């Protein structure tokens, strides 16, 4: 298994040598055929499921940036998602803006909200930060729930689907092209960020704030940046969710339960591991859908899985693989070295 992955990665690396975007383009083109494949093998409904997977991938990857890379324990991410969704919906409905305008504006608003959610992180750490962000996230939901202009108890209805010219993007597979593109771009940029100086700054902050600051990293700035970047992901996912037919938003789509599910995705895949987050999002969404008949036991299974994961596999699927690869290299080196000295 490990060697398969190693081979696979090296194959991709050699592709990337030709041009760094080549593997991405190939993946993208292959994914364009996914709806047809899915419809042919499983049925049309599963394209809808794939769409939901893509939304969660965006959310999970975004959450990973602030949580996994930067180490800021936020539990308010779902609140940002809500803000993105509601803003875009209201802009489209009240001001008749097209999706292509309302979504970027919503992302902008979400960024600002991300800044606000991130502000506590400048002063707080760990559990305290978790509490503060949880409070903010829940407050967003409650505000939506009690404010008629934001939908309150009846929700926001009939949010128009995105259009290109006269064409309305409303069928499952056409929406797939939209969300999948967003997801791929999201994943790609998350890699770019991780491998950049910014990503290293995030990780340094995660490890030791004081050491990071004397290494010249502007800690408050980068913490906020992490929140804002993850807010971009959340805002985009929110807008895509809002306009996805039938275009309906209700505050109970954004509760703590959703937040926990999102956490599960990230944990399952491996905190701080990008592909892990992607895999986590897909696995959780699909399993959730497929085990609907056992709805009485679903939370139990999900909860216990989460606990077991943290306890027995704290680095998640992705982390285990990564760890195995690193360990292998390390032991090899160690043995090499012992041969050399004795």
């Amino acid at each position: 298994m490990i060697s398969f992955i190693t081979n696979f990665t090296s194959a991709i690396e050699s592709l990337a040598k030709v041009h760094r975007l080549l593997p991405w383009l190939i993946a993208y083109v292959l994914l364009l055929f996914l709806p047809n494949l899915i419809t042919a093998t499983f049925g049309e409904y599963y394209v809808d499921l794939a769409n939901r997977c893509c939304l969660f991938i965006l959310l999970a990857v975004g959450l990973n940036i602030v949580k996994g890379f930067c180490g800021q324990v936020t539990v308010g991410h779902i609140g940002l998602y809500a803000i993105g969704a509601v803003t875009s919906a209201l802009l489209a409905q009240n001001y008749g803006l097209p999706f292509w305008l309302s979504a970027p504006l919503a992302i902008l608003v979400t960024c600002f909200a991300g800044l606000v959610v991130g502000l506590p992180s400048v002063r707080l750490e760990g559990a305290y930060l978790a509490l503060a962000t949880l409070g903010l996230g829940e407050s967003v939901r409650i505000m939506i729930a009690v404010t008629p202009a934001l939908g309150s108890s009846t929700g926001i209805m009939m949010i128009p689907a995105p259009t290109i010219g006269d064409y309305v993007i409303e069928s499952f597979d056409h929406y797939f092209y939209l969300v999948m593109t967003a997801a791929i771009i999201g994943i790609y940029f998350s890699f770019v960020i991780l491998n950049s100086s910014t990503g290293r700054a995030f990780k340094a902050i995660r490890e030791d704030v004081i050491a990071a600051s004397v290494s010249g990293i502007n800690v408050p700035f980068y913490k906020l940046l992490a929140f804002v970047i993850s807010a971009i992901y959340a805002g985009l996912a929110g807008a895509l969710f809002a306009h996805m037919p039938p275009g309906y938003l209700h505050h109970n789509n954004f509760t703590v339960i959703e937040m926990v599910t999102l956490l599960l995705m990230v944990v399952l895949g491996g905190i701080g591991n990008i592909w892990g987050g992607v895999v986590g999002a897909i696995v959780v969404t699909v399993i959730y859908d497929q085990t609907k008949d056992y709805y009485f036991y679903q939370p139990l299974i999900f909860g216990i899985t989460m606990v077991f994961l943290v306890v027995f596999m704290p680095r998640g699927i992705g982390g285990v693989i990564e760890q195995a690869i690193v360990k292998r290299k390390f032991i090899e080196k160690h043995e090499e070295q012992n041969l050399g000295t004795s």
Partner: protein
Amino acid sequence: MALLETRGLSKSFGGLKAVSGVDLKVQPGTVHGLIGPNGSGKSTFFNLVTGVYQPDPGSHIEFDGHDITNLQAHGIAALGMARTFQLLRLFSEMTVLENVMVGNHCKTSYGIVESLLGTSRVRQADQKMKEEMLDLLEFIGLANFADIPAGELSGGQRRLLALGRAIAMKPKLLLLDEPGAGLSPVNVDKLMETILSLKERYKLTVVVVEHILKVVMSTCETISVLDHGQKIAEGPPEMIKNDHAVIEAYLGRELPDEEIRNAIRGQ
């Protein structure tokens, strides 16, 4: 002109004056020793100078012609000041290579937006930096451990890495807080070589806090001595060695083996 100059530098914690009224000048291109009994304020001095703590009012710190008294840590680092910590503070989940790359943060040649977009300039710059950093690891003897998480190194290896991370900042001034503690004698010798070669080759100015006398005495041009937060002596090693107050407060007497043995055994 001095590279680093403090005037009336003070810091008190509650009633305790950890550093009080210290005037200190570090001349460029020298290795400057800072010694003193435990708790005399050496680490606090470093924390003040690097912006980890805010000094008490009335203090002045100048670095390389800038007034840095009220700057934040990252701003001071950007001006070219690097340090190590007594308790190391490595990024223990990051690899050895990443640790030094973070050290190099201020030297990144591209902006944040660019880094987020991953332009080709970013990638080239990163590649170049990686090579440079591998050279650096080679220099401090950790090249073999480049991919290992820093948390899995032994005590002495960690200390070397901490030094490496500071050097990676390519600073003008390097502050070392007990770089030799826990190093084996051979590595202590190597450390001294390293300090000297940093001075020679990279024209670095170094301030070193160290309790291993050999290190300070044979690498420093000037030594300042702190006691109870105040500077009690300053001068070349020869002078400090024989300074009565310093011997009294810090050094104790240099003794031959036999006498040490007797001292240990209380005879």
